[in-house]
């Protein structure tokens, strides 16, 4: 397929890897922010082909993984109500709440439906006027314009039996929080290509200025990933810290203006809790007052009172900050598997634990003797 096969070219990827090997002289810790990229890296085995100086750590950019437990519990409470049709992206159904997941609500007879697009949820609302359709509006800046459009369409078309449980998060405040954290020692960031497709990368200029870390906008295929890594390593070796774009076929500096416009019309910034990490100031979206009637938390105030509990063994918060690798968790592959996940990072295909499990990164010892140079 065009724009795909040429970026999966193994020979070209290897050429870039050789160049990285030639460039690197010192250890560097580099974080890929986006869970989709984590998945690509582990799937292609790129992490195992890098020179030993480069430690790739995985970031918090998995929307399913960072959706706070409190909101999963609220989703479960809503989905259990007989007059509600609860709609969600499929990944969310297996995410464990305090006591159960959405899938078990569905199995017990709850009307929980998987949708591909928020517009599908709107269609379900039109077809079922006697019920209220609640859509679980999760994701980063990539899904925000789509979810905003669904709310705007509900208003424009007068569809009143539609509401959204909003759990939107945004990337730059999370990177700032990681940079501010004394525990996190990341030398460079590979920014999420599709988030930047929507938002551009101007927001990172200040960050680079203040913290002196390189940020390279990265695509999702092996050639894209290798190239972005090379650009990041070059900056680090040369002592530069700049924002660079290694995904220019999709990303321009200002991003997608119509998409940003609708985000700004429908959403406003809010403090948001990230699962396993905690509250990050101004790191999320909530509905603007003009759209408050579509806010599921306001429409169903009875779901407000839930005080959730995390399982203590799960270290997904550390995994999401790049402080631990999934296979350093004692539950990894033992009590915790994709069939029986303890934490959200084992559920989503974008979660680092699920990627490690799926592609056989079982033991740390295996990691160490993989490539002997």
């Amino acid at each position: 397929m065009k724009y795909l096969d040429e970026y999966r070219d193994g020979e070209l990827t290897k050429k870039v890897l050789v160049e990285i090997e030639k460039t690197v002289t010192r250890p560097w810790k580099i974080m890929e922010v986006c869970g989709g990229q984590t998945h690509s890296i582990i799937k292609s085995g790129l992490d195992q082909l890098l020179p030993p100086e480069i430690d790739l750590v995985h970031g918090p950019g998995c929307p399913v993984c960072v959706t706070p437990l409190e909101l999963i519990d609220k989703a479960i409470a809503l989905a259990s109500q007989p007059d509600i049709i609860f709609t969600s992206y499929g990944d969310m159904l297996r995410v464990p709440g305090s006591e159960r997941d959405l899938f078990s609500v569905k199995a017990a007879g709850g009307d929980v439906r998987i949708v591909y697009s928020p517009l599908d949820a709107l269609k379900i609302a039109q077809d079922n006027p006697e019920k209220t359709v609640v859509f679980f509006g999760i994701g980063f800046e990539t899904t925000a314009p789509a979810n905003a459009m669904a709310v705007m369409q509900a208003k424009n078309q007068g569809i009143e039996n539609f509401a959204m449980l909003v759990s939107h998060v945004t990337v730059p405040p999370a990177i700032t929080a990681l940079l501010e954290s004394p525990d996190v020692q990341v030398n460079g960031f590979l920014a999420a290509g599709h988030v930047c497709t929507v938002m551009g990368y101007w927001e990172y200029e200040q960050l680079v200025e203040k913290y002196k870390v390189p940020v390279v906008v990265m695509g999702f295929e092996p050639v894209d990933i290798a190239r972005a890594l090379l650009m990041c390593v070059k900056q680090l070796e040369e002592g530069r810290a700049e924002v660079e774009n290694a995904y220019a076929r999709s990303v321009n500096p200002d991003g997608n203006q119509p998409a940003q416009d609708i985000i700004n019309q429908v959403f406003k910034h809010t403090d948001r809790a990230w699962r396993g990490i905690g509250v990050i100031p101004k790191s999320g979206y909530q509905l603007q007052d003009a759209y408050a009637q579509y806010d599921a938390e306001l429409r169903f105030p009875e779901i407000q009172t839930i005080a959730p509990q995390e399982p203590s063994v799960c270290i997904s918060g550390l995994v999401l900050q790049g402080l631990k690798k999934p296979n350093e968790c004692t539950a990894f592959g033992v009590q915790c598997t994709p069939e029986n996940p303890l934490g959200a990072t084992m559920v989503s295909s974008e979660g680092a634990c699920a990627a490690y499990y799926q592609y056989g990164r079982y033991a740390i010892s295996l990691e160490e003797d993989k490539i002997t140079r």
Partner: protein
Amino acid sequence: MCLGIPGKVIEIYQANDMKMGKVDFGGVIKETCLEFLPDIQVGDYTIIHVGFGISQLDEEEAQRTLEMLREMEMLADELPELDGGLQT
């Protein structure tokens, strides 16, 4: 959710006051909202997320990147131990 893959726009129409289209992903056709891509036309490539086109892919930039990488001097077999490692 964030693994948007590129597809080719094969049809454009209006529905509920939105620019909509059919997008071909190597034979799988998906109905897509193209409201965020005012300039996109039939034959262009886009990346879609949750049913919405977010990007119009830039052919020139794509070619420039590939040419630049292909022109890099070194030969891949300088490092034979990388052979067969890529699982994609």
